[in-house]
């Protein structure tokens, strides 16, 4: 029994020693590799900069190490560049086979390789890669598919919009950050392309992201769609969407939405947060027709609505200020404090 135990202990100790040895050897190899790469890097940076500035000599890419360093340096620089130098760098990467290699990488078996290939192509944004990016929208990995959608959106071209939108809808829950980036690229490059994402049958989180993007980009062509989002049927999700839409209408400054926002602000069946957003939007638009409803909402049950109405009145000129002055002598301490704060210059 004791001998068997001893064998087990010796066996375990050997495994631990071997594992430690393997870890140390791997780390040493990695450190050595990084040192070698660091030695090559300054020369590559100089040669690449000179090439981009117009000298005909290309940076060396004879060995795998030189190619790896060149790709790293190029990807780092390309993100900071646009115009002639960017185009020259993209041309260089195409000529040296980095783009075609990444295109092949999109059909690799390993997910990590496909993700890396998609990221490389997203950074380079070479038109030569379109043929590989389009089928990759169907990749089973959300990040690969959405990164490719982002790249196509960044490159523009109406031909990809439907496929990009479908990819965004499919993966919005699993990859919300990446889909938001793709939507932003789409909204910036194709200002009318986001319409399908504002439709009523789209999942509320996707719809809200799309609303935020068109609002932040101040795209007035979406105002009818934003008004529709505001007046959708009730329900918590719908109120969240409506609150985003109200913020958007306020940001863009839609005078045509004033009546709908007035109705929404005083609709007690809506959540306080959504009504508060509508009240704030009325303040941002600055139409004096909103004064009576906002004055009434100073006595709303929900404190968010009361606070938003007070702030909004401050943006409605003399009629709003007159209401706030009256509120500053209100019997309610809270209303008084809010009104006094809103009257501060």
């Amino acid at each position: 029994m004791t001998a068997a135990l001893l064998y087990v202990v010796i066996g375990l100790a050997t495994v631990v020693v071997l594992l430690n040895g393997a870890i140390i050897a791997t780390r040493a190899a990695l450190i050595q590799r990084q040192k070698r790469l660091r030695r090559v890097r300054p020369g590559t940076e100089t040669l690449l900069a000179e090439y981009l500035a117009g000298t005909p000599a290309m940076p060396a890419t004879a060995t795998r190490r030189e190619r790896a360093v060149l790709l790293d340096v190029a990807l780092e620089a390309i993100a900071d560049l646009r115009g002639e130098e960017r185009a020259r760098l993209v041309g260089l990467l195409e000529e040296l086979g980095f783009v075609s290699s990444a295109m092949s990488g999109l059909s690799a078996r390993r997910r990590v390789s496909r993700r890396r290939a998609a990221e490389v192509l997203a950074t380079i944004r070479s038109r030569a890669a379109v043929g590989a990016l389009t089928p990759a929208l169907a990749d089973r990995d959300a990040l690969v598919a959405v990164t490719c959608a982002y790249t196509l959106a960044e490159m523009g071209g109406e031909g990809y919009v439907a496929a990009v939108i479908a990819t965004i809808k499919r993966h919005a829950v699993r990859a919300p950050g990446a889909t938001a980036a793709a939507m932003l690229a789409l909204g910036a490059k194709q200002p009318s392309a986001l319409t399908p994402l504002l439709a009523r049958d789209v999942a509320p989180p996707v719809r809200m992201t799309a609303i935020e993007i068109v609002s932040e980009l101040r795209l007035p062509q979406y105002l009818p769609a934003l008004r529709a989002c505001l007046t959708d049927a009730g329900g918590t999700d719908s109120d969240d969407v409506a609150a985003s839409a109200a913020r958007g209408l306020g940001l863009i400054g839609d005078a045509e939405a004033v009546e709908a926002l007035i109705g929404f602000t005083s609709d007690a069946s809506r959540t306080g947060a959504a009504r508060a957003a509508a009240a704030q939007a009325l303040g941002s638009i600055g139409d004096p027709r909103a004064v009576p409803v906002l004055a009434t909402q100073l006595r709303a049950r929900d404190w968010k609505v009361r606070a938003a109405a007070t702030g909004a009145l401050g943006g409605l000129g003399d009629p709003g200020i007159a209401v706030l002055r009256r509120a500053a002598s209100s019997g309610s301490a809270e209303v008084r404090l809010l009104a006094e704060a809103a009257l501060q210059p």
Partner: protein
Amino acid sequence: MKVLIAEDSATVRRLVAARLIADGYEVLEASDGEEAVKLAREGTPDLLVLDKVMPKLDGFEVIRALREDPRTSELPIVMLTERTNEEDVLGGLDLGIEDYMPKPFSPHELSARVRRALRRSGR
């Protein structure tokens, strides 16, 4: 005319340097904020191209250090900022930068802005 370029990405820095040299400027290079302050004080540049995001001292800290020193308090600065960061732009303008360029940027355009900034500052 002498231009100091403070940018931590070596490729971008050297590319901007090559462009400015081709346009007839003498160029000094700094790869971090501390080196930028040192070279601005000792190298007597006529203009500083300054990246906002840098190691050791960021762009704003560099500007503050330069504005406190009589040797560099009037040095015109063109700052490279992140594309969508309004705070960078407003912060830089508040600190008295001459101009800014959002990244990604065109070195050709930067060279034109350097020319304009030097002209405006009477150098």
